[in-house]
């Protein structure tokens, strides 16, 4: 008997999701049958996590139908999905480290006996769950100090004591070593034998062959290809993942000058999130950095801008070694960072646009050590105008759209006439119109001789705006490609090493 013959545990038909004017899922069909592992693949932003949130009840679909063992299924909350028999194992573990394994397994639904917590009952059942996964640990042990793989298995055991019939594993091996990964895979085999269905989300394409029975590839919110076997060449999967999406318009890229503006030598972080990185960027050059989430790109550029610690190596600006120790240090030398998360790192949301622009330029706004509100607003208004921010200077930054917020962050830095501008995910969550104006700004900077470093998970964007592209994988520099040689496949191949 093969999995194909069984009624699916879960069926999705034409699932859609719309946020405002943005459609993030386009009519997804998906079946998961008992005892099979379906790998769900796609680039960042392809719609995998939205889809898993819909299945697990955290997000409601805008249209389409779901069935669970043939019956209509529309979980209104994660709790409802859990009660139906779905186990969602998140990338970030959600165990409470100070509590025992048994307490974690029964979190929120402690077994009761005669008005008291039935510890023995909980321990026995937790132990049974652990043994089913081949794990021989005392359920009384606290979670703290257990390896990530074991914690992951405890999460699975927790789902299993809830009689889960379908598990969603989101990047389960992201934090695991080789041996731990194999342990996890053996447990997955046991679960399959018990008839549990599994949706397996991962960026590590080489694992897919080992673990998956079927492969579903998503791109730009649509299911683009389905393979009825896990045994698909990585290259074929990558091509399906990057595909040819809608053509986007990128402005013409200026030719860089010949002299080097910034050079990075043997740069490493204390936690080895990036290791021995070497590159240089010329005046007027746009240098892209590509790679998967967790490859160390953000940590690297934050370190160059003084925001994260550097353990060894140096940063050389205009021929002078400056290796910044703090953002203040970097800014004084002319290196500025437009951070990944506008809302948490770029702007004080409940302060005005003027104040936000002012905070990065207080030394320049002040006249003889005095700052007045009038000076602040005059200074800011000039840049609000230059960048076409749609909003009044006195408005709170939090009231603006994502695109306008990003323009405010750019404005506050470009007012300083920097030498190096580092942009981390400059267009994440920004609509198409605002995107192209941000690309125009990048090109204007390059034309003025600024060295621009752009980190982006959007492959087409890195390819579209960069003179050269460095690809990172697991903290190491996997290669630097010239614009002429770089395409989606060559970059993805380096990134998934």
């Amino acid at each position, binding site marked *: 008997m093969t999995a194909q013959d069984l009624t699916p545990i879960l069926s999705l038909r034409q699932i859609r999701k719309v946020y405002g004017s943005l459609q993030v899922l386009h009519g997804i069909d998906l079946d998961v049958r008992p005892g099979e592992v379906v790998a769900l693949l796609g680039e960042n932003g392809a719609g995998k996590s939205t889809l898993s949130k819909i299945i697990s009840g955290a997000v409601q679909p805008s249209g389409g139908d779901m069935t669970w063992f043939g019956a209509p299924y529309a979980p209104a909350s994660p709790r409802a999905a859990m009660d139906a028999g779905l186990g969602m194992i998140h990338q970030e573990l959600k165990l409470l480290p100070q509590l025992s394994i048994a307490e974690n397994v029964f979190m929120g639904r402690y077994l009761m006996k005669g008005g008291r917590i039935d510890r023995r009952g909980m321990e026995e059942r937790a132990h049974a769950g652990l043994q089913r996964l081949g794990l021989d640990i005392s359920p009384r042990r606290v979670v703290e100090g257990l390896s990530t793989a074991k914690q992951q298995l405890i999460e699975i055991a927790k789902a299993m004591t809830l009689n889960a019939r379908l598990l969603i594993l989101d990047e389960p091996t992201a934090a695991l070593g080789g041996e731990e990964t194999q342990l996890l895979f053996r447990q997955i085999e046991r679960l399959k034998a018990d008839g549990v269905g599994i949706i397996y989300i991962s960026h590590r394409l080489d694992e897919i062959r080992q673990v998956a029975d079927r492969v579903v590839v998503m791109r730009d919110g649509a299911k683009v290809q389905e393979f009825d076997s896990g045994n698909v060449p990585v290259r074929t999967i990558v091509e399906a993942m990057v595909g040819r999406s809608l053509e986007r318009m990128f402005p013409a890229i200026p030719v860089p000058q010949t002299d080097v503006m910034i050079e990075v030598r043997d740069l490493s972080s204390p936690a080895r999130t990036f290791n021995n990185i070497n590159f240089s960027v010329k005046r007027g050059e746009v240098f892209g950095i590509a790679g998967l989430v967790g490859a160390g790109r953000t940590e690297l550029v934050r370190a160059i*801008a003084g*925001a994260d610690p550097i353990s060894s190596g140096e940063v050389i600006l205009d021929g002078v070694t400056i290796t910044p120790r703090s*953002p*203040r240090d970097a800014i004084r030398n002319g290196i500025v960072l437009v951070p990944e998360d506008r809302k948490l790192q770029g702007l004080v949301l409940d302060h005005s646009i003027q104040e936000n622009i002012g*905070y990065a330029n207080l030394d320049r706004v002040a006249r003889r050590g*005095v*700052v007045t509100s009038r000076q602040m607003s005059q200074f800011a208004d000039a840049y609000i105008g230059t960048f076409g921010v749609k909003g009044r200077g006195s408005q709170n930054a939090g009231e603006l759209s994502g695109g306008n917020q990003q323009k405010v962050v750019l404005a506050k830095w470009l007012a300083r006439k920097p030498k190096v501008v580092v942009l981390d995910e400059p267009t994440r969550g920004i609509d198409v119109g605002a995107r192209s104006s941000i690309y125009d700004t990048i090109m204007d900077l390059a034309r003025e001789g600024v060295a621009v470093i752009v980190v982006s998970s959007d492959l087409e964007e890195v390819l579209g705006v960069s003179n050269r592209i460095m690809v990172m994988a697991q903290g190491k520099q996997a290669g630097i490609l010239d614009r002429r040689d770089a395409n989606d496949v060559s970059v993805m191949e380096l990134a998934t090493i």
Partner: protein
Amino acid sequence: MLASVKDDNRNAGAGVFSVLRGATGPLIGLILLCIFLSFATDKFMSARNLLNILDQITVLGIMAVGMTLVILIGGIDLAVGSVMALTMMVMGYLSSQIGLPLGAGILLALAVAAVTGAISGVLITALGVPAFIATLAMMSVARGLANMITDGQQIVGFPSWFSLLAYTRFGGFLTLTVAIMLVVFVLGWLYLRYTPGGRSLYAIGGNQEVARLAGINVSFYTIGVYVVSGLLAGLAGVVLAMRLDSVQPTAGVSYELDTIAAVVIGGTSLSGGKGGIIGTIIGVLIIGVLRNGLNLLGVSPFLQAVVIGVVIALAVAAEAVKQK
């Protein structure tokens, strides 16, 4: 002509509003309170009583300026009451027991107060101790030290000119202690409103990481703010010593809570980044007027505590409702 007059008016209105920085609610509360008391009692609206109120709020007012800075950056300083007592005891010990001139004793005592703030600031920035805990520890240490100096005894017998400073009304109305408070108010207001440093405090309180990434030296300002808070607590101690003509190690118990209450009633947000000195002055006045008015009405001290607690809760609840 007419247009320009109109324009001026509008600017003036906007100016007053922006000076208040969201403290309009507390101001209305203060005005209503004064109106009520002027009808409910005969004595409230007399010049003498109003000057008394100013004298009574000096200690609270001076400490509240330091606390405003601390709360603006999202911190808290629980040590101010104890630091005040420590400063008083150091001053009394150095002048009465060691025999230093009183002026020198005051300066050294203020230096001690500043050092307590610096220690709290370093604990918070360099070691990552939460502000609540660091200043709670300092509160205990400073109180203990204050008691150790004289083994819990008070010190009396300062030169007569010293306590006269709290009672002689220069120009018929201004005692030196009130003058000190007014100077501290003005300096605090100018600093927050017109200097890069003051603006940086708002940025730090708004979002510490954004401020750091904007090149603001967050550690420097954090330590600085606790130093100023300690120093002003010390200054408040000197003022209290003038008013009491004695110093005792039990002075200032639970003053930190009154100070925090005044700042919060004045509209400064405990989560940081919002508020200012004008609001704090109004908050201090509300507490001062309320105490004075309740005394004039003959309300028992026990009931007064209840009333003040209710006012704190109402003021902050009103602000929270307005935010929604």
